[in-house]
């Protein structure tokens, strides 16, 4: 982790990656906050973590690794799925069968 210093350009780039549109007023506020939080996070550099395994899930620490053959997954059986009408009822736009969205190809 190098010296942190998030620029306005960084904020806009990350916002684009996250599909977030920020207003002109939001950008400096987010820049200030991200720098403050990353400054706090920089404390992690004090720790030497060479050779320490990364922990993604609690189970890994308890010796309960995911069984790669799938033995601890549920049985792959056909079961009723959600009622389509109930799902589509909450969609912003639907023809009853599919979700409708604006034009996908832009150029």
């Amino acid at each position, binding site marked *: 982790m190098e010296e942190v210093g998030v620029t306005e350009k960084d904020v806009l780039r990350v916002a684009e*990656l*996250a599909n977030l549109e920020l207003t002109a007023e939001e950008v400096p506020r987010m820049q200030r906050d991200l720098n403050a939080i990353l400054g706090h996070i920089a404390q992690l550099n004090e720790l030497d973590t060479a050779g320490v395994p*990364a922990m993604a899930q609690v189970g890994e*620490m308890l010796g309960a690794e995911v069984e790669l053959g799938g033995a601890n997954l549920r049985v792959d059986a056909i079961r009723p799925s*959600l009622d389509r009408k109930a799902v589509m009822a909450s969609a912003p736009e639907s023809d009853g069968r599919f979700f409708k969205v*604006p034009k996908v190809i*832009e150029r």
Partner: protein
Amino acid sequence: MTIEEVRKAVASKATTATAVAEQHYARIAAEDGPSGKNIHSYLALSRDRALAQAAKIDAMAANGEALPPLAGVPIGIKDVLTMVGSPATAGSKILEGYMPPYDATAVKKLEAAGAVLLGKLNCDEFAMGSSNENSAYGPVLNPRALDRVPGGSSGGSAAAVAAGFAVATLGTDTGGSIRQPAAFCGVVGMLPTYGRVSRFGLIAFASSLDRVGPFATTVRDAATMLSVLAGKDELDATSSDRPVGDYVGALDKPVAGLKIGVPAEYFGEGLDPEIRAAIEKALDGLRGQGCEIKTIALPHTRYAIPTYYVIATAEASANLSRFDGVRFGLRAPGVQTLSAMFRETRDRGFGAEVKRRILLGTYALSAGYYDAYYRKAQQVRTLLTRDFLAAFAEVDAIVGPVTPTPAFKLGAKTDDPVQMYLEDIYSVAASLAGICGMSVPCGETKGGLPIGVQIMGRHFDEETMLRVALAIESGQA
């Protein structure tokens, strides 16, 4: 009223489940809204579903049938869990009007055990916050001090129990969101071990940390709730198939001989002196009941907050990508292209804290920063977990504060995210390690604000944790 009191009263026909539900709805109508105390714990009431269930329980009681453990008990559900017939907003505008087509497993289990589900409870947007001030639908007030926050993110769940708007509630805890509001509102709140309670139907914030757990007025009620909620769910691959304990039965075992660890790192600078005194008194009480109290070290404690805010935001940035205006909730109107619809929908739908965390998480995962932030934080998570595993080789439970301060005033920390995040200083380590924890009332400040004590237990050893909690609770009276 406690769970057992309600159940017995319904079973003996001293009252009916319908009458109990109506009493709670009457209290909510009188006090929860702007014409009352404006506590604002409920976002939606599920009257039809509640009264249908109450009628079913009353018919069982009338027929003299054996009643299930939560028969007629009025329970509220945090609005990040899905419940058919009620909107699920997660405290966000982006899900306004969303009617989920399925029940969360925890919701389903409560109802199958006889609970009467009163409605959906206010919370910080997507459970991101420590004060409930991030709800897009307005804050919740602390029933014990109306100028103060109830804590967060499960502020509505804690406040509803404290105000008598439910006998018990469901909350969720990712970094302290059950234990901290329980401490602020003077109720019992429990974080079960990761994997003990199904997350199916929980609107995800950080999947490796999110947990569902109960709020109640007593330790015994929290144990009863856990007995109903615990267990393997094939709809949640991270739920554990370890046998479910006898949580209520464990309460009869004395605590004499148990070794209690007190982490020096949890009593450093910044801890309110009245909270310190209250916890020392609780420890004296445990000593008096035959526990051996010993100082332990959890040396990586100070790194828990920075670790948490990398991992939780990274996971959130991925989980919240599903809110795009296509399948549910809000869609920005009048947008011509798909990519503009995504951006404008998310801009309108997400509040400032959610955007802040998505940006931070996206930054931490982006090319060139992944090893420096995300991988580093995952390695420190291992060190934090090893701290607990080493401590639990020496002691049976760990006792310390839940929060550095009692409930603070509304607006006191909203301008400074780092200050707000530091609220979680004593709660996030247990979240990262996956161990169980709970908050139990242990007195109040001179100003009358509740104080909570935190009890942490080994992975899947809620029984010992509950025994210690009960010993502390019984020492309060």
